[in-house]
C-alpha cells in the first residue's frame, strides 16, 4: 500500500470517529443555548404583557403565541416553562413550542398568562447540524485529499525517480549512480546513503573484477614455467612408468592453462574489454568454423546438416563472434552421440544448433559456471557460460533446451 493511500485511510478513520462526537457536542450545546435564549424571550414577553394588562384590562390573546385569561383566586396553577406540542394547521402536524405559564395579580385581578414560542423540531435540528457538518467536513476532506496528493506527488517525485534509477542500475554499465536531490531531509538522507552504499559496492565489485583478472594473469607465468619445464623433461629418455606420470602432469598443466584462459576471457567479458564491433556474417563464419573442425567431426563420424533460410548478420566484436561459434560447435561435437547428426538451422534472426546426446542435465543449469555436461570428462564447464556472456554483450538471446535426448541451443537477435 502506498504511503499516501495509508495516510488518506487514516485521515478518513479519524474523521469518522470525530464526526459523531462533534455532532453530539454541537447538538446539545446549540440546543441548550437556543432554549436558554427562547426562555429569556418568553420572560420578556411575559413582562410586556404584565405591563400592558396594568394599563388596559382588556387584552387580546393571539393563540397560540399569547394567551391571557382571568382566573379565580382559588385555582392553583404553578409557574413553569416547558415544551408542548401544538397542532399546526399549515403543516398539518404537531409542532413543538416552548411554553411559559405564569399567574400574575394585577390591580387585584388574577390573570393566567401563557406565552409560547415555536422552536425547531429536534429532528430538523439534528438534520440541519448533521447536514452542515457533513458538508463542511466533506469539503475539508476533499480539499485536503487533493492538496495532499498534489503535494505528495511533488514531494515524492525525487523519491520515485530515484527508485526507478536504482531498479535499472547495474554495476556492469560502469556508470556512476546519479540520484535526484530532494528538499525533504529524510529523502535527502536516503539519497546520500544510497550513493554512499553504491560507491562502496561499486568499489568492491571493481576490486573483485580486477582480482579475477589479475589472478589469472599471475597464474600464467608459473603455468608457463611448469609447462615448458615438463615439455623439456619429456624430451629425455625415461622409463615407461615415469613417462606416463610426467605426461599426466603435462596434461594437467595444459588443462589448467586452458581453464585459466577461459576464466581470463570471462573476466574480460565482464570488464567489457571487447569493443572491436563490426558487421559479421555469422553463417559464413559458421561455415569456416565447421571446416576448421572437420577433423573432430569426422573422428566422431558425425554428419552436419545445415538448413539455411536466410543470412544472419549482426554487429559483434570479431574475436567474440569467433569464440561464440567455436564454442557452440565444439559443444555440439563434444556432447553428440557418435554417428548421429548435428542439425543447424539459420534464419535472418536466429541460429539453432541441435544434436543428440546421452547427457542428462537440468534445463536451468546449462549456463551455470563450472557445470559440466558429464562429470567424467575433463571439460571445464565454462563453455556455455561464455556463450551466454558473449550473447549478453552482443545483444543476443540464448535459449537451450534438452528434450529427451535432443539438446537444442539457439541464439536470437533481441
Amino acid at each position: 500500500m502506498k504511503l499516501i493511500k495509508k495516510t488518506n485511510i487514516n485521515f478518513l478513520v479519524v474523521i469518522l470517529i470525530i464526526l459523531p462526537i462533534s455532532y453530539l457536542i454541537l447538538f446539545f450545546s446549540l440546543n441548550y443555548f437556543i432554549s436558554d435564549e427562547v426562555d429569556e424571550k418568553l420572560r420578556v414577553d411575559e413582562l410586556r404583557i404584565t405591563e400592558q394588562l396594568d394599563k388596559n384590562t382588556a387584552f387580546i390573546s393571539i393563540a397560540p403565541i399569547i394567551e391571557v385569561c382571568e382566573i379565580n383566586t382559588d385555582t392553583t396553577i404553578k409557574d413553569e416553562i416547558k415544551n408542548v406540542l401544538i397542532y399546526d394547521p399549515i403543516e398539518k402536524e404537531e409542532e413543538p413550542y416552548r411554553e411559559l405559564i405564569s399567574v400574575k395579580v394585577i390591580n387585584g385581578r388574577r390573570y393566567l398568562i401563557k406565552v409560547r414560542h415555536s422552536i425547531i423540531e429536534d429532528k430538523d435540528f439534528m438534520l440541519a447540524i448533521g447536514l452542515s457538518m457533513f458538508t463542511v467536513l466533506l469539503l475539508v476532506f476533499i480539499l485536503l485529499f487533493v492538496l495532499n496528493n498534489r503535494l505528495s506527488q511533488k514531494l515524492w517525485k525525487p523519491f520515485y525517480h530515484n527508485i526507478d534509477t536504482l531498479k535499472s542500475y547495474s554495476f556492469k554499465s560502469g556508470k556512476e549512480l546519479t540520484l535526484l536531490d530532494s528538499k525533504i531531509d529524510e529523502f535527502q538522507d536516503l539519497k546520500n546513503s544510497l550513493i554512499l552504499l553504491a560507491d562502496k559496492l561499486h568499489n568492491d565489485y571493481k576490486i573483485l573484477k580486477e582480482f579475477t583478472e589479475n589472478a589469472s594473469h599471475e597464474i600464467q607465468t608459473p603455468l608457463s614455467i611448469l609447462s615448458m619445464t615438463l615439455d623439456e623433461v619429456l624430451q629425455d629418455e625415461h622409463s615407461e612408468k615415469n613417462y606416463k606420470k610426467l605426461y599426466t602432469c603435462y596434461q594437467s598443466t595444459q588443462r589448467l592453462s586452458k581453464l585459466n584462459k577461459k576464466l581470463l576471457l570471462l573476466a574480460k567479458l565482464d570488464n567489457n574489454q571487447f569493443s572491436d564491433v563490426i558487421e559479421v556474417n555469422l553463417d559464413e563464419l559458421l561455415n569456416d568454423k565447421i571446416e576448421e573442425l572437420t577433423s573432430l567431426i569426422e573422428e566422431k563420424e558425425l554428419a552436419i546438416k545445415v538448413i539455411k533460410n536466410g543470412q544472419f548478420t549482426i554487429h559483434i566484436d570479431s574475436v567474440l563472434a569467433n569464440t561464440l561459434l567455436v564454442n557452440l560447435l565444439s559443444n555440439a561435437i563434444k556432447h553428440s552421440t557418435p554417428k548421429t547428426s548435428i542439425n543447424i538451422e539459420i534464419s535472418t534472426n536466429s541460429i539453432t544448433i541441435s544434436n543428440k546426446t546421452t547427457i542428462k542435465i537440468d534445463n536451468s543449469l546449462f549456463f551455470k559456471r563450472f557445470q559440466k555436461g558429464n562429470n567424467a570428462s575433463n571439460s571445464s564447464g565454462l563453455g556455455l557460460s561464455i556463450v551466454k556472456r558473449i550473447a549478453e554483450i552482443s545483444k543476443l538471446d540464448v535459449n537451450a533446451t534438452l528434450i529427451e535426448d535432443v539438446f537444442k541451443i539457439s541464439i536470437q537477435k533481441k
Partner: protein
Amino acid sequence: MKLLVVEDEKELRRTITDFFKNLGELVISAKDKFEAEDKLLSHQFDAIILDITLPDGSGIDILPIITKTQDNTGVLILSAKNSLDDKIKGLDLGADDYLTKPFHLAELNSRINALVRRKIFKGEKIIQFNEININLSENQVYIKEQLLSLTKKEFTLLLYFVNNKNRVLTKESIAEHLWGDNIDFIENYDFIYTHIKNLRKKILLIGGEDYLKTIHGIGYKYTNL
C-alpha cells in the same frame, strides 16, 4: 642465428635460452629493460623474444630502441595478458609476431623460424630435411624431386615437424599449432591422428622415408635416428 631473450622470470628465461642454445643458436638474455637496452646497443640480433611485463617498464617501450639500434631483426612479443590492445600496439610499433603465455617451446621455435626466414633470409625459401624439400614460396613439398601433394593441414604439420626435428612434440602442442584458438574448447586430441596417418601414407607412397616416430602414446618425434 643470434637471439636476444628479454624475460624477467628467471626460470622462463633459462628454459628459453637453453632450448635455443641446444638447437645451436647463439643466445643472449636480458632480465629487464635496462639490461635489454644495454645488449641492444652492443649487438646485432637476428631475432628478439620480448616479454611485455618487465620490472622496470613495459617491453613495448623497448620497441623504438630496437628500431633505432638494429638493422634488420624479427621481434616476437610474449605476453601473459592475452590483450588485443597490447597486440595491436606491439605490432604497430614494429613487432612481427605475438605469443601468449603459456606456450609450447616448439611453437615458439616455429614462429621464430618463420620470422627469421621472412625478415633475414629473404631469398631462401626452401627448407631441407634429408630428401625432403619444403618450398615456402610455392607452399609445396618435394621428395626426391617428386611433388608431394598435401592438404593445407598436412603441409603445416610437416613444416612443424621439420622445424622441430629431433624433439618430442605432444599431441597438445600439435593440435594447438594446427588449430590455434579453435581447439580451446576441445579436450580430446585423438583427431590429429588421422592427419598424421594420412601424411605418413602420402610420404611412403612416393618413396619417402618415414621419419616420424610415435612416442609412448604422448606424441611424435621427427628424427633421422
